[in-house]
């Protein structure tokens, strides 16, 4: 098991390094000059040269690259070109917002997607059940999350005025209250702050969750179909066990293995989704930070954001691979 883990980690390292190189060199071919972007084209040549030197952009590319990799390894992404303060701090501040969004939409996606997938697999011969579910899955799969988000905003924020139009609530405040212990001394304030965060979270989570639910329902449908065609299900049927018991006792449990793979895929899709979702709902988070930093030509910030995104995806896949082996004893650690 230990060697297996080590091997997987060793494979992940060059992958991460490669992904980081792609990011670095892509950012360096950018047509725009960050200094011009920051100071405007009215800036004097000296001021621009100064800026270039301060940001270290005049050094040889190879040196900049080596520096970038070495710092990234130590989780140091430099300072934001525009704001000045460390990218780390930025990421640390944005990460909880994105995490909350991904978790909330995962809950929505699982609650909607898994039952739909299972039912559509079991009732696939009943067109009255199968067709609507398949149409739902296709619609969800085809609906761009940013469009769904706008529709939700139009109906629930603008027309019905039930939810806020922008922002993510004071999540920083909530976290600070937990850290300082205020959450327990002033539970009323704390709950109000949490409620506000949740209030801001409803629409984005619904939008992202619904589009993800389609993918989840398809994957769990095929996982269920796969399981239900196994010999042990036939055995259970032959024993005369009731259908309900077959589904709950045999099929559902064995479905967990294929479902695990979904989680890896799911995180990748959900993270991409946050880029669009956070932009639509003008919510703070890693995704919005990425888009904003790209538009501002803020290399360190963009690099940091993309590096963190890639790290998360690679790491989740690593963990899933390991869980795989834990859940299914038939898989050997090689």
């Amino acid at each position, binding site marked *: 098991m230990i060697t297996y883990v080590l091997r997987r980690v060793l494979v992940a390292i*060059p992958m*991460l390094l490669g992904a980081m190189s792609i990011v670095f060199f892509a950012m360096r071919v950018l*047509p725009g000059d960050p200094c011009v972007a920051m100071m405007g084209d009215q800036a004097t040549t000296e001021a621009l040269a100064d800026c270039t030197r301060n940001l270290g952009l005049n050094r040889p590319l190879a040196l900049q690259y080596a520096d970038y990799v070495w710092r990234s390894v130590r989780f140091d992404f430099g300072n934001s070109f525009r704001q000045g303060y460390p990218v780390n701090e930025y990421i640390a501040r944005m990460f909880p917002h994105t995490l909350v969004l991904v978790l909330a939409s995962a809950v929505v996606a699982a609650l909607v997607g898994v039952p739909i997938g299972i039912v559509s697999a079991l009732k696939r011969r009943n067109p009255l059940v199968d067709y609507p579910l398949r149409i739902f899955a296709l619609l969800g799969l085809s609906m761009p999350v940013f469009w769904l988000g706008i529709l939700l905003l139009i109906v629930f924020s603008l027309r019905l005025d039930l939810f806020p139009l922008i922002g993510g609530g004071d999540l920083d405040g909530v976290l600070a209250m937990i850290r300082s212990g205020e959450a327990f001394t002033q539970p009323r304030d704390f709950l109000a702050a949490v409620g506000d965060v949740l209030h801001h979270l409803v629409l984005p989570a619904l939008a992202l969750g619904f589009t993800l639910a389609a993918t989840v329902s398809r994957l769990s449908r095929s996982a269920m179909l796969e399981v239900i065609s196994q010999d042990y299900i036939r055995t259970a049927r032959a024993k005369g066990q009731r259908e309900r018991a077959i589904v709950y006792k045999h099929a559902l449990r064995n479905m967990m293995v294929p479902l695990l793979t979904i989680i890896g895929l799911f995180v990748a899709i959900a993270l991409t989704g946050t880029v669009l979702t956070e932009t639509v709902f003008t919510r703070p988070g890693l995704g919005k930070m990425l888009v904003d930093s790209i538009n501002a030509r803020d290399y360190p910030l963009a690099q940091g954001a993309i590096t963190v995104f890639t790290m998360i995806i690679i790491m989740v896949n690593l963990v899933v691979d390991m869980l795989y082996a834990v859940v299914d004893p038939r898989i050997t650690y090689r």
Partner: protein
Amino acid sequence: MAIARDAAAPELTAVGAAEAPRHRSLRRALRRYGPIGIGLVMALAMVIMAAAAPWLAPLSPSAQFADAVLKGPGAQDRHVLGTDEFGRDVFSRIIWGARVSLQVGLASVVFGFALGVPLGILAGVQGRRTETVIMRSADMFMAFPTLLLALIIVTALGGTLLNEILAIGVALTPNFIRLSRSLALTIREQDYILAARALGSGQIRVMAHHVFPNALYALVVVGTLYIATAIRTEAGLSFLGLGIPPPTPSWGNILSEGRQYIKCCPWITTFSGLAIMLAVLAFNLVGDSLRDLLDPRLKGE
């Protein structure tokens, strides 16, 4: 699968009536070919829309009507879907916008196919070092979700039609590499490959004349699904302001521009988004149904 068939068997034997078969075959045909028919019609409509935009669009996509700025659907009896903040006709802009989506959708998949399939087949047939190098590089790119990778590339190169095609094409390539490799792995074990080699075919001939044609079916099915992905990705890039810059209409940038006006004028975003969804839906339907029709494992359904 065997279980599923058994479960269906009694039902089949029960229907023994003489006149049933005709009805049943019609219904079955509708069930089998209905979805793909709808998908094809929708996709065809989109192709016609893109190709015949100058004749189909009632008004010029760039003409600004000063008397109809931000007017709702049906305004002045000539703006079917309303106008935007410059008084441009949303309906005409959406028709012209089909061009961008379709061009990017098709061309980027062709690009990914042309780049990925030879590499994948090479990896699958050749094995060893070649395979390791190709697959590890593909894995590296796979670490990025499609939109993220396309976003990085398009930012680096700038938002033009060609760059979008390139960016999404490159982002799709690893998927084609993986799929064609796994197909090649099974195909290379077939007897006809052995026969071809025995007859003196070289490696390239085996890959081009034997492996590739046999992998084509599956590749085309998945390719159709990737057209849907490409269209959605393009719309996402344009929505983020990284795609083709306005005034050229694309569904994503119409929607993005209309975002500021959702309070007064929701029609701009509603209809452009609907266009995106229907286009993606069309190709998803075609790809999905093709897979169901061609995949022998699912034939019993």
